[in-house]
């Protein structure tokens, strides 16, 4: 209980915070300054880094961007936006609009100096590209990193670097030729190397503590998930069992149901396998589910033993349905609470036995209205080319035997 209700530092208090576990297509990212760029990006469906770059460029263009930014921050209740998923087209739109505004401003305002705007614009776009691909930007692809293909990532990083270097070269030399580019690249590499040497150790330390913190957070989340699951399932069931202690059938059914679901949760559905891994669409999984349903519906315990496995098809499913009918019949009429079902896939045959040690009956005297055996069991199995046999006698229990020739058993065809 305490674990389940332990406060988790994620959703709830701040709708702007990203929930790490849910990769939502369009999200309002963590604010970098005042959160205006993020809000604009979310509303227009662009990437936050691109919008930030646009603001930087516009700010250099005579301070227009800074004014715009502050104005929007003052005016806009940006917490109410309904985010759109960012797309490349909308990012391009932001870039074009920015370029247009700069162009227009250039005519009106002497403060817009191309020798400043162009390099800053190039660097800003380069950084934006790098952020988008490096997962720093809060766009959809960084929330779902498996979608980012390596080749496109490399192309974008390279393009970002070229833009940055080009921008710096323009800034330094004001004339782009090969020599300037080379010198700038070397200067940039030397500067970056120096920065890496100076800051490297602390960056690494920070990265380590960051990942340790993240591991810790993941552990806490897993623990909370386990606690929540146990709370929702096991504790609830135990409470129900205490309340209904006077009703043995109900408590047994609750306990069986809970046991099954807990096992499925713990072992991922593969706990009953023998040699064969349980195929999710195979016979074993289907038979297990069917038996569970009958147990729950009719408050009986069914000992299910399976050898081999095979794939489902219409014929096999018909046999499964016949077996279900046999179990339901036994649950209703045998007078015992414990049934057995054994099924075996050999190389050429599927065999199913459903057995009870109940009171049995005289097969010849079965009323015409008890159509379950004749139609649902025997007729159904024969209809798909199998054989069905019911062996019973008064006081001797009942055993239903279903056989179906199969082409390939034991493995999937």
């Amino acid at each position, binding site marked *: 209980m305490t674990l389940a209700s332990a406060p988790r530092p994620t959703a709830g208090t701040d709708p702007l915070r990203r929930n790490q576990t849910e990769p939502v297509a369009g999200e309002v990212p963590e604010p970098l300054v005042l959160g205006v760029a993020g809000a604009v990006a979310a509303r227009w469906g662009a990437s936050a880094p691109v919008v930030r770059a646009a603001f930087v460029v516009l700010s250099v263009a005579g301070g227009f961007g800074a004014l715009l930014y502050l104005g929007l921050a003052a005016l806009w209740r940006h917490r109410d936006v309904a985010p759109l998923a960012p797309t490349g087209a909308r990012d391009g739109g932001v870039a074009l609009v920015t370029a247009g505004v700069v162009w227009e401003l250039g005519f009106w305002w002497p403060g817009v100096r191309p020798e400043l705007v162009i390099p800053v614009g190039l660097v800003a776009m380069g950084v934006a590209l790098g952020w988008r691909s490096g997962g720093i930007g809060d766009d959809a692809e960084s929330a779902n990193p498996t979608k980012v293909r390596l080749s496109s990532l490399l192309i974008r990083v390279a393009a970002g670097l070229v833009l940055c270097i080009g921008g710096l070269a323009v800034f330094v030399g004001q004339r782009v030729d090969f020599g300037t580019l080379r010198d700038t690249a070397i200067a940039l590499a030397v500067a970056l190397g120096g920065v890496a040497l100076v800051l490297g150790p602390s960056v690494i330390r920070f990265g380590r503590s960051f990942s340790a913190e993240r591991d810790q957070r993941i552990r806490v989340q897993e623990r909370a998930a386990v606690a929540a699951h146990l709370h929702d399932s096991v504790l609830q069931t135990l409470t129900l069992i205490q309340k209904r202690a006077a009703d043995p059938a109900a408590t047994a059914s609750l306990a069986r149901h809970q046991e099954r679901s807990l096992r499925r949760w713990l072992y991922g559905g593969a706990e009953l396998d023998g*040699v064969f891994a349980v195929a999710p669409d195979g016979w074993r999984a289907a038979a297990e589910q069917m038996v569970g349903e009958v147990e729950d519906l009719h408050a009986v315990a069914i000992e299910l033993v399976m050898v*081999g496995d095979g794939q489902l098809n219409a014929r096999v499913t018909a046999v499964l349905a016949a077996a279900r009918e046999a179990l339901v019949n036994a649950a209703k009429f045998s007078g015992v609470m414990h049934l*057995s079902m054994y099924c075996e896939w050999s190389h050429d045959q599927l065999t199913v036995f459903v057995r009870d040690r109940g009171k049995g009956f005289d097969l010849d005297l079965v009323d015409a209205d008890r159509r379950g055996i004749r139609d649902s069991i025997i007729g159904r199995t024969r209809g798909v080319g199998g054989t069905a046999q019911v062996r019973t006698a008064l006081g001797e229990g009942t*055993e239903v035997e279903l056989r179906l020739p199969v082409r390939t058993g034991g493995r999937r065809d």
Partner: protein
Amino acid sequence: MTDASVAATNTWAGPRVVVVDDHALFRAGVVAELADRVHVVGTAHDVASAIEVITAVVPDVVLLDVHLPGGDGASVMAGCVGLDGVRFLALSVSDSADDVIALVRAGARGYVTKSITADDLCDAVTRVAAGDAVFSPRLAGFVLDAFSAAPASSADPELDQLTAREGEVLRLLARGYAYKEIARELTISIKTVESHASAVLRKLQLSSRNELSRWASERRLI
């Protein structure tokens, strides 16, 4: 069961049993269920105490949980190797083939699940005390699965394959038949059924170069 044998088991103290299980509630439950039909001479909750108790009282049967603090059921059996006449019956809540086959290969005379009824458990204990093998339907299914995984082709075919009769017996066990019912079904004596079951158990324990061991090693049992 006839009335006479029920009366007899009620008055006779029955086999001496040690119950090893780390779950105190479950241990108490088993002891209460068995109390008037077998003689529970000791209990233990982990590997070390189990070996100590078993060595001290030398029971006929040890009801052994698969998973224990400080090891598993197999390490208890390993710690009691020198003791004559002590037989182990594995008792587990786990349905995994790995656990069960591992214990049987380590020398357990049988395996039952914890959902077993008190009557069936007493029956199983008595049977193990008499030196028989106890196959729950599930264990029979595991063994059939293991032996049918692929046709054997090794130096010791006797140990690698089940005879047709052993296969029949195992299939009936897997279908939930009791030994008595199997004997009637196959028109053989109960003793013969028991000897088939013991033979299967021996094959399971002794066969080392066959499909079974490959199966087991694939599943990281050995």
